């Protein structure tokens, strides 16, 4: 009996080892249907591998992969990292022999981590597609990351509810339309009076919950904080843009911190949820509050529409969802637009074979340059792209994307670039978030937030550049 068991175990062990050895190229993840059809002429076929960042687009990429293989014979493997785990997944995947050939970096700071793996894309057609070449991530004349989607964020509001407010007989303000809201002062007046009339408006609060649960604070520590840092770094005359200025800044003054406090406090004082309970709220909670009509406004970006529309019982009508810039009370903010930028840059892995690198670039050129590819980008991925291959009428139909286009087209209005792309790493953001949480819960003064930001910036800058 013992002998039989021993032999059995030995066989199992050997078999499992053999299974490890076969290098599961497709067996690891690979969600899409990969039937092994040969390309005919070549005999061995190129396989490229795209590590996708956007979970909401995973299913679309599977169909793109199928179509691409049908059209060109090149096999495209798409793996999607689960939400908030891209860096982890990339770290694991890129060390494999079957490494991603196309991956994503989140901006100049992400580029530092993955520098060794980014191929120079300067001479590719893909780079020539880029309308504004300055958007790409460059270093010493080389081009290493190319943005593929332009996103924007601000305060999203439900026009039905604001219209209802403007129609109220006993409102205390002179405001009659959202067009008059062009500064923090006006916004504050509107919000506070709306909050006072919340029962008549049928809402629980003007703003959806300021989500402060762990992993859900990025709307404040990056997006909202972007505005004060943009103003601070735009005063630095040595740089042409705020992102490079912030990247080279060993310290920050956080000069406009009170402006951030203005809007942040407006959010939390006129919220659906009581301040001290915000620590348990997630982004999904606040998006569903907005979708269900419990709140009139929520800070978020163009990507939020699918989330709102997917909420069961969504009451927000497609033509009644609008954007408002993040007004914080800075002088001259009447001309400030939405925050427009990207943290999605595509990079090609320089450590895979030349052939695979070329095939990867070919795929990107196909996706953003060919008719079939562009159709997917516009209609299914709903990207507003920074590429000149797209005509002016080739824009996504989503209401928030359309709003973004409308805002960026406005004359005299200046969009705020995504300066937060230069924030020195995730540790800075999480320090910032903890300080904000203590402030919201009343256990810390705003000065503490300010000091935390200053100190953490300094520490993290040193850690990053040591």
């Amino acid at each position, binding site marked *: 009996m013992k002998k039989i068991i021993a032999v059995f175990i030995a066989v199992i062990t050997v078999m499992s080892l053999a299974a490890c050895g076969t290098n599961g190229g497709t067996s690891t993840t690979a969600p899409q249907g990969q039937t092994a059809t040969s390309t005919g002429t070549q005999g061995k076929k190129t396989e490229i591998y795209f590590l996708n960042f956007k979970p909401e687009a995973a299913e679309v990429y599977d169909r793109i992969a199928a179509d691409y293989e049908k059209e060109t014979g090149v096999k495209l493997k798409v793996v999607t990292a689960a939400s908030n785990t891209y860096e982890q997944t990339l770290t694991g995947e890129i*060390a494999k022999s079957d490494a991603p050939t196309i991956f994503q970096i989140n901006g100049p700071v992400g580029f530092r981590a993955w520098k060794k793996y980014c191929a120079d894309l300067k001479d590719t057609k893909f780079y020539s597609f880029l309308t504004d070449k300055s958007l790409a991530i460059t270093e010493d004349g080389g081009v290493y990351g190319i943005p593929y989607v332009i996103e924007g964020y601000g305060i999203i509001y439900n026009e039905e509810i604001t219209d209802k407010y403007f129609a109220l007989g006993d409102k205390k303000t002179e405001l009659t339309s959202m067009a008059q809201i062009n500064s923090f002062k006006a916004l504050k007046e509107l919000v506070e009076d709306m909050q006072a009339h919340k029962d008549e408006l049928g809402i629980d609060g003007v703003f959806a919950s300021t989500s402060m649960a762990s992993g859900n604070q990025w709307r404040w520590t990056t997006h909202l904080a972007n505005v004060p840092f943009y103003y601070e770094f735009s005063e630095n005359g040595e740089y042409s843009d705020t992102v490079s200025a912030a990247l080279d800044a060993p310290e920050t003054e956080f000069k406009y911190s009170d402006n951030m406090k203005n809007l942040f406090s407006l959010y939390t004082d006129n919220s659906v949820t009581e301040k001290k*309970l915000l620590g348990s709220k997630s982004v999904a909670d606040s998006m569903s509050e907005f979708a269900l009509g419990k709140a009139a406004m929520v800070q978020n970006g163009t990507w939020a529409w699918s989330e709102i529309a997917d909420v069961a019982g969504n009451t927000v009508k497609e033509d009644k969802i609008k954007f408002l810039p993040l007004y914080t009370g800075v002088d001259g903010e009447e001309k400030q637009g939405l925050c427009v930028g990207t943290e999605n840059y595509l990079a090609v892995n320089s450590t895979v074979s030349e052939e695979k690198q070329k095939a990867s670039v070919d795929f990107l050129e196909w996706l953003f340059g060919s008719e079939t590819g562009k159709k997917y980008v516009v209609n299914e991925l709903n990207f507003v792209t920074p590429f000149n291959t797209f005509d002016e009428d080739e824009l996504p139909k989503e209401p928030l994307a359309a709003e973004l286009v409308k805002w960026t087209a406005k004359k005299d209005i200046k969009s705020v670039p995504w300066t937060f792309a230069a924030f020195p790493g995730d*540790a800075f953001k999480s320090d910032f978030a903890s300080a904000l949480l203590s402030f919201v*819960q009343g256990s810390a003064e705003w000065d503490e937030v300010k000091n935390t930001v200053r100190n953490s910036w300094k520490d993290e800058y040193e850690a990053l550049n040591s």
Partner: protein
Amino acid sequence: MRNGLKKVFPIFVLPTLAAFTIAFAVPFIGGIVLSFTDFTTVTDAEWAGLSNYIKAFSNGDFLNALWFTVKFTVVCVLTVNIIAFTLASLLTKKLPGTNLFRTVFFMPNLIGGIVLGYIWQLIINGILSYFGVTITFAAKYGFWGLVALTSWQLIGYMMIIYIAGIQNIPSDLIDAAKVDGASSWDILRHVTIPMVMPSVTICLFLTVTDSFKLFDANLALTDGAPGKQTAMLALDIYKTFYARTGWQGVGQAKAVIFFILVAAISLIQLKLTRSREVEG
């Protein structure tokens, strides 16, 4: 015969040896080597000497996490073992329904830590909302939340081990004690507890290492908030590894120190409790 066995010996050892090398020795040694290097992925490491170990102590995070973990482990070891032993002695008393209760108490152990973390977060936030706060309001809420969660999860398992220990006590020992006029407290103190010392050794070992290494529940319940005040060692290592660009090596160095700590503590503990075991 002996010679024949020697010849085939490598064939039988090889699969296990290979499995051990691939699954344990290589990653372990690789991990130690990586702690002395700067790396983004395991294939592009560059030698960095001791700098990672110096950086690991360059801010107070690691020591704070260590202190928090030690406090947590001490409290958990006490709560888990005392409650588990009490339950075990109750459930070996031939009361009706003991099987049902054993199953019920054991069940939490079968639920994964991340799920447990979220469930307990809901429960604790639900209770704290009556006081207008959440679990991230102060470190003490997170601390006791973690203690409650871990105790709840581990008690069932330890209880089963204690039950097995108690049932193994020969009944003549207890009968003899009764004949000698021992009270039930005397029996517990002088018969039961010495006789279950082997179980105590195992349970202490498991609770010490499990609480010391706790990660998933910590991540799901508090994620270190407020600040980094409720981050335990494993979570601190994870955050060092991923939150800072270029600090992967430092995370690795912390992990090596962590390993040495866990190994040292459990060895000392084993030695101490072993010496109290009596021959059955």
